């Protein structure tokens, strides 16, 4: 459950956001017209409502698309600064969630293209709200983490546009049409990017027999 406090905006604090899962996208509901109007007018209380509703989802989308990065805070900040500064141009044709996701995708793409990516420092740890599966043995957890790290390393070698389209489609489960809208590309180009990303990923996995074995063993039980 998402809890949003109603304490007034102080200019320096945001309300507590309590969402144990945190990763779930906000429910697709019609945006409150009063909030939209308030955001357009730059009203702090409306912007606060918008921020609290979407910040976790924005964090997740960016983290998924870029992989582990110590620049997550900057990227989320850039996304919201752009959103707050662009409300005047928001025409209401898409939901606010779609609109801010598009900005987040653009921000992530820009980061991936810039090549200014840094190693993840040790202090960057997973969300404490999301405990590891207690039924999974420790060595299995370590294996899963290692596999994820290696897959992210492979994704780093795929061109940003292809990588982003692939992840939005397969991991975030957006449709082709939605991916095309989020990345401002045609449907044909989007399909092509997803397909080529898959092909490149497969080729890289094939070139690393130990990784392929790791992937196959991790998914052998229930892939169908």
């Amino acid at each position, binding site marked *: 459950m998402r809890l949003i406090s109603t304490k007034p905006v102080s200019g320096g*604090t945001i309300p507590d956001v309590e969402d144990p899962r945190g990763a779930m996208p906000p429910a697709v509901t019609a945006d409150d017209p009063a909030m939209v109007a308030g955001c357009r007018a730059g009203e702090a209380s409306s912007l606060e409502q918008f921020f609290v509703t979407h910040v976790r989802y924005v964090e997740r989308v960016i983290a998924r698309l870029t992989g582990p990065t110590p620049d997550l805070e900057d990227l989320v900040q850039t996304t919201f600064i752009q959103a707050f500064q662009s409300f005047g141009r928001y025409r209401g044709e898409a939901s606010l969630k779609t609109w801010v996701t598009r900005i987040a995708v653009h921000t992530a793409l820009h980061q991936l293209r810039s090549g200014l990516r840094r190693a993840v420092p040790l202090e960057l740890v997973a969300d404490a709200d999301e405990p590891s599966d207690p039924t999974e043995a420790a060595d299995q957890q370590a294996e899963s983490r290692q596999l994820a790290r290696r897959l992210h390393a492979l994704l780093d070698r795929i061109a940003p546009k292809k990588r982003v389209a692939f992840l939005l489609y397969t991991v975030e489960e957006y449709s082709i049409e939605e991916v095309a809208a989020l990345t401002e590309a045609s449907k044909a180009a989007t399909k092509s990017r997803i397909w080529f990303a*898959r092909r490149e990923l*497969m080729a890289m996995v094939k070139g690393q027999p130990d990784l392929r074995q790791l992937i196959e063993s991790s998914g052998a039980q229930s892939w169908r």
Partner: protein
Amino acid sequence: MAMSCGQAGRLSLASAGGHASEAERLELEAHLAACARCSAEHAVVVSTTRTLRASEVPTLSPAARQRVWRAALSRRAHAPAARRPLGWPLAMGAAVAMAAAAAIWIGVRAPSQYAIVAGDVTAAPQASTGGTSLRSGAAHGGVVKLADASGTLSPATEILWRHDRRVVELRQGALTIDLDHHPGQHFEVRTPRFTVEVVGTKFTVDMRSVRTERGKVRLLTPDGAEIGFLTAGLAWTAPDDATRAQASAPPAPPTEEPAPPGEPPVVAAAPGEDAGVRLGRARRALARGNAREARHLVEPLFPLGRDVAAEARAIYAESFLSERRYDDAIIRYSQVVRLFPGTPQAESATFAIAQLESEHGQPAVARATLQEYLNRYPHGRFAKEAAARLQQNR
């Protein structure tokens, strides 16, 4: 009709992403049962997707989220306020009030010469320039009043004060100027190497460098080209003569196509160049006003050790400041604060953020940042200034 391997591959991807219908999944199953190659690839696609989906996603801490909120709120766009026409009596009243204010302002700012306030200072008019030469003794400095500015001369300092232009020429020694900001009012200190234009500040200039203690100053080359802004706590040293001569030499004929606009300049790394040298080159590039070159020079230093990386990030932030890209500067200074806590760069960056916020219409946010600075650095280099600003902003 039998499904081809290409179609199976696309359907495999759709299935992994949760986009395939039940009928399509059954069709895919039938193909996979008969095709070992597609079956193996599908296993990899599904496992890869599942692993990525299940992998831990880092999220921001509540404190980081607070920072993001504050930063975004401080830079929100405000809808233009509706203009209400003034009624003519009110407009006339406003005009009268403005005229009165202007009269008071002119009175306060009537050109004044100078006054020797304290210390060992002698004055001599210079007919050739229309100014006054002020010179402090070799052993003791002194304090002078130059229009509405206070000037502290170090020992063995000579300045030429031109009150008609509100310009001080520093001829030798070092000078500290303390001046409140009055919009539209000009005041500058010139040296042969550079010019310091006052934006409301306290700063010290010698023949080669300038250090800002409060507020900020604008640095210019002797021919008036802007070098950049220097905010409180920051110092700038003019490049040495050799570098200056090189920088001011006529450009050599281009041997390559110039970089397209927006592309970072190509800056060749000298063979065996160490990080310190590269930082120095970046500083000099910044001093020449070439922010993009400075950024390009420091970017490769980000992954290096803490000291080098902190300085590189600080220069990076400063480069945006010099381009007047204040939002970008704040973001980069915030990185310095977050990534290098406990370093002098983080301290300077925190104060720089507060100044930028304060000077760009965000007094509430600036207050929070100043308070944060004082909490972290109660005896810091800018603690006095931060406390004073906080007091002013209340």
